[in-house]
């Protein structure tokens, strides 16, 4: 049951295309920031990305090694659980499929770890098959630190907290371990089209 609020009405110019703006979201043209603590300071000399498979085999890249990997430019819509959506954002990054090339079976889930201690968890199926990247460019520029630079995960089909900023490690395995916001009551999966904002949605 819903309740009409006296006097509230739609401002038509604000509603976006319904097939691109999920329920409960509104469009924004700027790029709000949501993070739980200070922006971590990561120097490119010390930066590394480590990916491990279900058997614990690992592969690591320094910044310069990472930039030598095949890169892709993608244009995607992104949706934040705090209700904003942003259409046609342009990113440059390395596909997770590429990172997994020389590793064994990933297993069913991945725990993503970031500089600063942030974590998030996803099913492997949601980060493979061309659905997720480690992005280092945004809008033709280097990714700014407050938006997750040097590099962040990009999983545009899920709420954006899953696209962990300042990514440092992808730990694949057969366990689903809850990440940071997931432990604080946010939804474990986070599909914006099903409005899976909070645990139980």
């Amino acid at each position: 049951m819903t309740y009409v609020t006296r006097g509230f009405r739609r401002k038509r110019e604000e509603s976006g295309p319904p097939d691109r703006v999920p329920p409960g979201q509104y469009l924004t043209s700027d790029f709000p920031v949501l993070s739980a603590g200070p922006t971590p300071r990561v120097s490119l000399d010390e930066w590394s990305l480590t990916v491990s498979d279900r058997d614990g085999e690992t592969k690591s890249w320094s910044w310069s090694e990472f930039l030598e990997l095949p890169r892709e430019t993608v244009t995607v819509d992104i949706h934040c659980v705090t209700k904003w959506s942003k259409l046609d954002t342009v990113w440059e990054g390395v596909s997770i499929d590429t990172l997994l090339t020389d590793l064994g079976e990933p297993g069913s889930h991945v725990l993503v770890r970031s500089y600063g201690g942030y974590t998030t968890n996803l099913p492997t199926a949601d980060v493979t098959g061309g659905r997720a990247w480690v992005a280092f460019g945004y809008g033709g520029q280097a990714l700014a630190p407050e938006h997750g630079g040097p590099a962040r995960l990009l999983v545009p089909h899920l709420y954006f907290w899953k696209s962990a900023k300042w990514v440092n490690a992808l730990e694949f395995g057969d366990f689903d371990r809850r990440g940071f916001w997931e432990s604080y009551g946010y939804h474990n999966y986070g599909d914006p089209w099903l409005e899976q904002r909070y645990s139980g949605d």
Partner: protein
Amino acid sequence: MAGAEILGRLTWQLAEVVEVIDENSRARTIVLHCPEWRGHLAGQHIDIRLTAEDGYQAQRSYSIANAPHAERVAITVELVDEGEVSPFLIEELRVGDRFEIRGPIGGYFVWEPAVGGPLQLIGGGSGVVPLIAMMRARAETDDHVQVRYLSSARSFEDILYRAELKRLAEENDGVSVVHTLTRSHPEGWDGPTRRVDRDMLEGHAWSAQLRPLCFVCGPTGFVESVASILVDLGHEPRRIMTERFGPSGG
């Protein structure tokens, strides 16, 4: 840290406006009565859902402004020009109107007296809303957690909760309140008149050696800058909790 995991499903509950307080020309506090509300932690937020007659719905998130109480939730809404929800809440909503809410949401940017202190609260603009909830939660207990409250506002008129904060500082040994005014200030103003910078934090915030719990909330640029200076001053990143909101929304 005080964990506040959301247990079970967060369902929409109907709330009724029982009081509106115009804080200034661009901000309004809305006090809601919600029979099913079980209380919250200072720093948490709610989602609200407004439904128009044609079925159109809009959702927004707002920080809770009041100390934890059953059945009662207060939010302070700042006007976003050209916004869809905030102009309605500030200019049209009146006592007796009803809309849906769900929450409380968020378990990281929270404080309760049992967590202790000292507390360092730093807010920019309407980023002070979750911080006033912490001040109010503290005021309702008998223990004496030391707290320093630093807010940045554009003008004297824009300072939220000014009279209440003045009273809290006068009545409590352990409370200091400083406002800085960044655009204009009245004649005779004796507080700072610039953006929060390193000197200001060295002068008005707890030193890192005391290991305060720092809560920083405001627009992205404000939070980025303040949190970064706190790290420079030696505060542990894990004791700096941030909440940011951009100029969009509302």
